[in-house]
């Protein structure tokens, strides 16, 4: 087991990793920017090192500063969390060159699965259904046009190096295809230095379901079941739950087995999430895989009773997964609401200011993953998510009930947050009846 780990991240995930480290008896070193100087989790860490000013490029994305911090703190490994450098191949390579373990996948798996076109090819080879579309990157507009007509509109033009909905366009007919094609290429070049694009048939009103997989260095891979993340706004997840309420056991098994196939074929190690779309007939299609821990991991932890961050650390330290798939069970229903410092009444504009009253919820079945406190000021430089509320009950209905209770108790003043929108979604008839799709939030809120 490692003696010391450096956490190259901030906020709630940094705190989450500190907690896992301490329970494992591992020293936790955390880096911070000047904007996070007063973050309380710094005190929980065994050492905290300031690595730069507020701007992410000069701090949380500053590889030399982070590696220097790892060296002066004499750590064995770095946990990158999610976002920032978590899927940065260059960073993983530098860690390797510096003799520091990167708590994540091998570089080859990151490269393979990070390239959406290659990932689709891999899925096809593994006989996992993929959304109909291009086999390779689109050379030019006329190729895109031909393919769009073949698979049928509406289609999506996406960037090979993209993720999280960036550099993506929906095209409804050939009139819009030309501009969409060049726009996505330009965005992809600007954002990822990789202009390659591909095309997918748009699945109408899909559900978004992902499977949590964990693989060790010996080649063992298990899944921890699925999460339904259909409640999204502009490709950002808002509410996640497990199990997927519309899958039966057979559908679940098929989906999870498909996810395992992909992770094994990519020789991925450590945590990975395989993402699928579910169409109206409950057929699933692979869209992409993420080789990092995700913000919604607590939902899986609640229904399986497994600590995913500890698994990540143990696997990186060389431990093997002694559990068989049969021993991993899911029980009950869990829901997570991401609370963001955004004003729903003001087009979800980022709220700023200082939180003068902060009273988190509690009680049976409630877990709060957050690092903020009374007196804390929302920073402008980072993601707007300030807290995650997770509930776990025996049934989905009970979980919804507990979440509504918990959110009504949650006081964050005077800063506007997305708590009211979450409450509205949870109370919505269609959400209760599972008649939602990825467009639900934008249509109704």
């Amino acid at each position, binding site marked *: 087991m490692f003696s010391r780990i450096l956490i190259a991240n901030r906020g709630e995930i940094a705190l989450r990793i500190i907690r896992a480290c301490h329970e494992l008896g591992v020293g936790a070193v955390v880096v911070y920017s000047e904007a996070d100087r007063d973050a309380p989790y710094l005190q929980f860490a065994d050492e905290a090192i*300031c690595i730069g000013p507020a701007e992410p490029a000069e701090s949380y994305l500053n590889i030399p500063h982070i590696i220097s911090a790892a060296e*002066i703190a004499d750590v064995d490994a770095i946990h990158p969390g999610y976002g920032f450098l978590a899927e940065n191949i260059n960073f993983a390579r530098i860690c390797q060159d510096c003799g520091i373990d990167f708590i994540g996948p091998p570089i080859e798996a990151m490269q393979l699965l990070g390239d959406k076109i290659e990932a689709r090819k891999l899925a096809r080879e593994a006989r996992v259904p993929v959304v109909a579309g291009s086999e390779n990157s689109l050379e030019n507009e006329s190729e895109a046009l031909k393919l769009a007509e073949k698979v049928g509109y509406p289609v999506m033009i996406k960037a090979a190096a993209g993720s999280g909905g960036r550099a993506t366009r929906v095209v409804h007919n050939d009139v819009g295809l030309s501009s969409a094609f060049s726009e996505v290429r330009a965005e992809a070049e600007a954002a990822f230095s990789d202009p390659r694009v591909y095309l997918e048939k748009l699945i109408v009103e899909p559900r978004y379901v992902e499977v949590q997989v964990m693989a060790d260095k010996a080649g063992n891979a298990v899944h921890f079941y699925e999460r339904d993340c259909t409640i999204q706004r502009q490709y950002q997840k808002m509410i996640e739950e497990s199990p997927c309420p519309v899958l039966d056991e057979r559908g679940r098994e098929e989906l999870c087995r498909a996810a395992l196939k992909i992770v094994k074929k990519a020789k991925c190690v450590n945590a990975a999430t395989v993402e699928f779309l579910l169409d109206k007939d409950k057929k699933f299609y692979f869209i992409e895989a993420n080789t990092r821990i995700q913000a919604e991991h607590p939902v899986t932890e609640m229904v399986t009773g497994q600590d995913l961050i500890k698994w990540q650390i143990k696997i990186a330290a060389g431990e093997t997964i002694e559990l068989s798939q049969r021993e991993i069970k899911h029980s009950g229903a869990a829901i997570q609401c991401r609370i963001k410092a955004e004003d729903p009444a003001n087009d979800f504009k980022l709220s700023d200011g200082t939180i003068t009253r902060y009273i988190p919820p509690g009680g049976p079945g409630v877990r709060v993953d957050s690092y903020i406190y009374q007196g804390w000021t929302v920073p402008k430089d980072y993601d707007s998510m300030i807290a995650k509320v997770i509930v776990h009950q025996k049934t989905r209905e009970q979980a919804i009930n507990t979440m509504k209770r918990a959110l009504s108790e949650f006081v964050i003043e005077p800063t506007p947050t997305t708590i009211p929108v979450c409450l509205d979604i949870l109370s919505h008839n269609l959400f209760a009846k599972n008649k939602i799709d990825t467009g639900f939030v934008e249509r109704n809120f």
Partner: protein
Amino acid sequence: MAQNGADLQTIKKLIEIMRENDLLEVDIKLVGVEVKHGNEKILLKRSQSLGPTVNVVPMAGGKTSSAPAGPGAAKVSVQSTASGSPQAGNIVEIKSRIVGTFYAQPSPESPPFVEIGSNVTPQKVVCIIEAMKVMNEVRAETTGTIAEVMVANGQSVEYGQVLFKVKPGR
């Protein structure tokens, strides 16, 4: 790209040129480079003594040993400027802009760059901070007298850490 705007390719080319032409020292001021923290220079000194290898991101070799590179190894120092605007009567702080290990002297046998009472001018090198095997020279960027040395030789320093307190004045 290396810290403070210095181009890794440029540094590598310079080292090549030095080797080929048997140069001992090259001192270059970067002009026209987008400068964020102040004036930027590249100073390369070729010494016969063992010193850390030139390695700017990405780096080869283990993290634990400062692998001696052998005779002819170039020691690259990229100026990392300090902050602190002189205000009459107030103490000016020289802070670190990087994360690394503080060295008060250029080599173990040498005297320290500065001590309490030493006069400094903006270009005066006050210490070295070693980060990822690169020795970064820190310049005073102010005029005055060293009033206090805030860190010890060999101590780890973080971004923003106060290294020296300077009493401004001529």
